[in-house]
């Protein structure tokens, strides 16, 4: 299992990747959509954890790009904002929506849930 973390807060995303790898989950991280796109060209990922609000290209837009490149890739949104827009997006995909600050165990549980669905061929 390999997952991709995308968040414009480097300190946050690097630390999160390190903590996940401590738990046996291989996680690559980048801080913008452009880098994420490049990475996906060379590497296969089962799941992407995306920050909804990022400069230039946000998480929801990036999700579409990633799905084009790697159909079937699962997404979990992270957000530090409670805007109506985020809420609507999160409500549409409730299992894949987490608010910062996150609990690492919650995140791992969501990752597993999402991947289980993928294995069963369900999900969105």
């Amino acid at each position, binding site marked *: 299992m390999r997952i991709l973390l995308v968040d414009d807060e480097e300190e946050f995303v690097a630390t*999160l990747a390190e903590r996940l790898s401590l738990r046996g989950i291989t996680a690559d991280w980048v801080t913008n959509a452009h880098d994420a796109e490049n990475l996906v060209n060379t590497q296969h990922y089962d799941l992407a954890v995306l920050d909804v609000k990022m400069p230039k290209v946000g998480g929801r837009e990036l999700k579409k790009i990633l799905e084009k490149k790697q159909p079937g890739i699962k997404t979990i949104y992270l957000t530090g*904002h*409670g*805007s109506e827009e985020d809420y609507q997006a999160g409500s549409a995909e409730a299992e894949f929506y987490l608010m910062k*600050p996150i609990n690492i165990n919650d995140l791992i549980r969501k990752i597993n849930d999402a991947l289980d669905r993928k294995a069963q061929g369900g999900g969105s």
Partner: protein
Amino acid sequence: MKELLKNFYPKFLWGGSSGKGPLYQHMFNYSRLWRSAVMLTALSAILPLLAITWFDYNVTRKAVESDTMSRTSRTVSNTKRTISGFLLERKSALDFIVHDNTFEELIDPARLEKILENLQKSFGGISDIGVIDATGRQIAYVGPYSLTDKNYSGQEWFRQVVDRGIYISEVFLGFRNVPHLVIAISHELPNGSFSILRTAIDTDQLNDQMTTLELGAQGNAFIINTQGELQIPARHHEKTFEKIAIPIPPFSPSTETLDYHDPYEGDFIIGYAYVPDTPFILMIAKNKNELMKSWHKTRVEILIFLSVGILIVMVGVIGFATFFVNNIYIADQRRIKTLHQVEYSNKLASIGRLAAGVAHEINNPLAIINEKSGLIKDIFQFSDKYAKDEKLTGLVDAIHNSVARCGAITKQLLSFARHMDVSFQPVKLETIIRDVIGFLGKEAEYRNIHITIDVAKNIPDFESDRGKLQQVFLNLFNNSFAAMTEGGNLNVAASLMKDDRVRLTVADNGCGIPEKDLKKIFEPFFSTRTRTGGTGLGLSITYSLIQEIGGAIEVSSTPGVGTRFVITLPLHAKNIKEKPHAHTPG
């Protein structure tokens, strides 16, 4: 009926504007508007009424006056004819005598005595008769005095009778000391000379004629000579030959009337006529007040009509002015209330956005702290070196817990702000209550206020407006907090009612609301906390919000014991029409 009467109560006189700034001022000065409306309408209604009444007053008065004048004039004319007739009768009798008798017969004392006797029988009041020749000597006389051979040639009356053929004297007393007058006529004799027949007539019969006149209690009738001396006694005390107080009226061949003011007896209408061929002036005086009695009655009626008319006009004008100004005032009040409500909603929305912004900005560094401290803990847990150092893991846990607390607060703020604009959706009542209470938790702790929440478990999630419910609870809880001192109790309870409604009570043991204020607390701008920043809109808006979501709110309070608000909310939103709500663009 009571509702209708309410419209005539001048609310605008006592209602004020509590808002600040030009938007919240009333559009008009209502007292001035009302005064102007009353004055202009009253003037335009009362002026024509006054004009018509004044016109009618004058026309009626003139008609009555002219009627009085003509009646007086008629009385005078009739009386003049009577007096003239009286004198003419006697003159004609003398004419008949001189034509019926020869000069020789007339100067025969026996014949003359017979004539006198006949005259007395026919007319009465004739005391003597004499025949005077052209030289002025009385050649025959029958009467109480011995006037035979008396010469009248030097006297004025003799000259007049010679000139005009007839003479009627003024009244005089004569030797008998009885008021009487003299009639003398001249008669041509066959020899070219002339003789004069002269007789004295008592005035008693004239008196009788005058006393039968209908003149009213204050009226009077006089016969005067050209010097103003009474020729017969008048009705009120004046005796013959007394001079009357009224000035002698100017000569006129016909009957005239004039106004006369007596300083002691008031206004009189005087009718007079110069009796032809006599020295007499007939005067009839009638008291004007007596004559105008019918006018006085009419005048009182006109004035009553005018007063009642003005009263009706004023009642109508004041009533309608109050009604219309009230309606304008109420519309203006509504405008201000709406502006306040918009401002209040905007304020809440701004606070929500600000809170969300702050929460978001804090969330990112908080997430970093969370991950860093998580990593430290991970390192402790995953490496043997620090795994058993309880102090270090305890410290990391403390950081973690604090971050979790901060996270909970920011999530709550974000959640609250997020739901501000959302309309109907399934809501969990207890969650909303606890969310709102969450904001007041710290204050409650500092002030030692005990909050109990008792929401019945059988209340299902129901369709309602989460944002509006949040505002409602926030307003009510804030009010309770403001009313309570340290150590107060706030009790929030909800239960399911039989008719598919939820009954929610918010009770505090604060200072309570006096009974006189209790009726007004849901009115806009009613506040007892204006000095401490109360807008007087919180409960008014609460009331509107609850109505918008189809609920109802009631209040009961005992001063010094506490206040209880009871809200009922429908479980099904099907019958609720959502009102358009004012939001400001972000």
